[in-house]
């Protein structure tokens, strides 16, 4: 056996195998967000869909992040044209009701959509327990490094982004994150 040739071949092939292994074991759609662990950008957005009692807010009210300090915030970006948003809508709406009376605040943010379309969509979906706000110019969406909808941000009681969920969320992940963040806040 020619060890010199074998060594050169290994030198060429091994890095390629490592590179392919690295590339093929990663999800190309997953782009890590730099935001978790950092302070959430402040926002003051206007309610267009009031939600239902006891979580209702009057249309035209302003939801400010600064007013939600001390509470866990679930910030869900959605749109009426987003098909995946249908998959999580009922779960988010019901889970928000389950947490009534606890220091948790759910907010829907309409992304690149008309409020009238959003209102109609909510009606078609059988209502939404928590209020939704508009985001003119998608300024808040960009502040939160949004790629598309749905995306959900879980903010801790100190106003820091704890987790960013890309795609539809399920009940298990919402409850796990909200319960964990509430437990940390209670300490």
């Amino acid at each position, binding site marked *: 056996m020619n060890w010199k040739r074998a060594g050169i071949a290994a030198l060429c092939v091994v890095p390629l195998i490592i590179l392919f292994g690295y590339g093929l074991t990663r999800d190309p759609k997953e*782009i890590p967000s*730099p935001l978790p662990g950092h302070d959430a950008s402040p926002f003051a957005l206007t309610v267009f869909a009031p939600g239902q009692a006891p979580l209702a807010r009057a249309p035209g009210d302003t939801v400010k992040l600064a007013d939600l300090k001390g509470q866990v915030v679930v910030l869900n970006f959605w749109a009426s044209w987003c098909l995946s948003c249908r998959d999580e809508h009922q779960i988010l709406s019901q889970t928000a009701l389950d947490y009534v009376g606890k220091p948790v605040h759910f907010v829907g943010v309409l992304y690149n959509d008309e409020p009238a379309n959003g209102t109609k969509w909510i009606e078609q979906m059988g209502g939404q327990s928590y209020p939704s706000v508009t985001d003119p110019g*998608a300024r808040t969406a*960009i502040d*939160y*490094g*949004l*790629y598309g909808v749905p995306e959900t941000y879980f903010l801790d009681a100190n106003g820091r982004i704890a987790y960013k969920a890309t795609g539809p969320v399920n009940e298990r992940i919402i409850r796990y994150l909200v319960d964990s963040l509430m437990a940390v806040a209670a300490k």
Partner: protein
Amino acid sequence: MIRVLVALLFAGVASAQQMMPADSILEARTAEVASQLRCPVCQGLSIQDSPSELSQQMRAVVKDQLRAGKTPEEVKAYFISKYGEWILLEPKAHGFNLLVYALPVILIAAGLGVIVLAVRKWTQTPTST
């Protein structure tokens, strides 16, 4: 004579810049920064080249920040803080990213080395028959 011509040329360029409306300068600076930022919802397009709504909105953010007095580097830093370095179309040359810049040079050097060795081998005169 050449000096006079060069001086006139520079004076012309300077006066053209002075005459350029502030809006056009801002547009040009916006386009320059926007062309370095990746459109999050496209494949390999900058927010300057992409017609998507999000890209247009991101361009508006770039323009507003430049208008407010931020430098292009500060504007890019804002987008990096929100989207990570992924948002830059051209990765910064540090850490793992260095591989992107170094690999082509290494491969070309290795290729040249192989060619030189092969040519030497082919042109070697046989030492014995």
